[in-house]
């Protein structure tokens, strides 16, 4: 029974992530005064990529993408089945690192630039993700998601600053402007195609599916801030997740890409001020 639930999570998460991406593309198009693609367009794209030839630069750069997917799926399953949030975050980081290694493995100059930028992004957002876990533990005395979402008061009451910091760095994680340095959804503002330049066919499809999982992981982190023992709070948490996603889409369409210095600096300043100060204040009351 338990295994069935885990498999169910692993199967349904990319479907939800793909649908969200489809909604994202429609809303983006409407914001630009266009009609936009059909809702199922991301699925058409991935199915098409699966039917195409996969050009192999060398065997390693494909291998890393599949390993990355495995770790991201692992993270999703842990988070959504109520597991240890710290373990989930470390597995997610490992997934990102394998993705970067894949970029470096192809030896293409465009991929290398993309990989370096991806590393910078990891550097920028990772401290805040860790502080989120620390904050949640501080507030609810448990690293387990199932304990955090079963608390009496929602974590957002204790951690408004950490929540703001998390929203800030989710822009990196969702690959949205102004922080979409390594690979963007919009081809025209890209050095060829960033870290995915050398991937084609099935490998590119895997990268896309990995991104769907990451969307779900990002929103799951938002979710745990609002869910409590009360059943209604879960509905409220889902609404907040959708609002956060909408906010990210609007920021994506309203902002141009920043330089890496600015991305790194702003992320660390927000982490330092919002995250750390929040935890210090919390330590006086706890």
């Amino acid at each position, binding site marked *: 029974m338990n295994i069935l639930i885990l498999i169910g999570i692993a199967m349904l998460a990319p479907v939800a992530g793909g649908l969200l991406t489809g909604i994202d593309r429609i809303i983006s198009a409407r914001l630009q005064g*266009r009609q936009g693609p059909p809702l199922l367009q991301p699925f058409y794209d991935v*199915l098409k990529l699966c039917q*195409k030839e996969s050009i192999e630069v060398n065997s390693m750069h494909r291998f890393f993408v599949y390993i990355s997917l495995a770790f991201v799926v692992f993270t999703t399953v842990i988070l959504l089945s109520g597991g240890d949030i710290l373990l989930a975050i470390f597995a997610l980081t490992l997934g990102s690192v394998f993705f970067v290694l894949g970029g470096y493995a192809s030896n293409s100059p465009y991929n290398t630039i993309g990989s370096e930028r991806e590393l910078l992004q990891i550097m920028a957002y990772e401290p805040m993700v860790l502080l989120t876990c620390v904050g949640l533990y501080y507030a609810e005395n448990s690293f387990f998601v199932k304990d955090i979402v079963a608390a009496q008061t929602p974590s957002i009451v204790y951690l408004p600053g950490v929540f703001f910091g998390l929203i800030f760095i989710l822009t990196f994680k969702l690959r949205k402007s102004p922080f979409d340095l390594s690979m963007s959804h919009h081809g025209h503002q890209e050095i060829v195609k960033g870290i995915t330049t*050398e991937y084609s066919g099935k490998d*590119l499809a895997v990268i896309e599916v990995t991104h769907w999982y990451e969307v779900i992981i990002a929103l799951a982190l938002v979710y745990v801030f609002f869910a409590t023992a009360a059943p209604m709070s879960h509905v409220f948490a889902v609404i907040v997740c959708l609002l956060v996603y909408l906010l990210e889409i609007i920021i994506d369409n309203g902002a141009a890409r920043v330089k890496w210095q600015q991305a790194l600096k702003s992320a660390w300043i927000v982490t330092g001020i919002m995250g750390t100060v929040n935890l210090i204040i919390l330590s006086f009351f706890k």
Partner: protein
Amino acid sequence: MSVVKKSPWILHYDGTSCNGCDIEVLACLTPLYDVERFGIINTGNPKHADILLITGSVNEQNIPVVKQLYEQMPDPKAVVAVGICATSGGIFAECYNVVGGVGKVIPVDVYVPGCAARPESIIDGVVKALDILEEKRKKR
């Protein structure tokens, strides 16, 4: 499954074009024509592309570039020559440096004549290329 027809990603290369056709190709992406309705994305990367759009004629200098772009695209792939220059060389056909249409260098599937080709006819050409793409996929 005809998913290939629902998500054609395009690579646009400017041969010796006067930019007239290039602007019309880009006009397809604007809110007025919005080709993303059909799932068409303008990628800057041959390895992600399904359809190669070439504007302008081919000259001695860009023969290797056109060939390389074509070879880097994963199968199945289609080529659309946009504008009269890409079709036959147009008024530049007699120039000492111009080789002729794109068809002299790589196999072209659809010719879209016009000077400059209108966005409607470019979209029409791409839609024709989709059927060819689907046939090629079945043959693989």
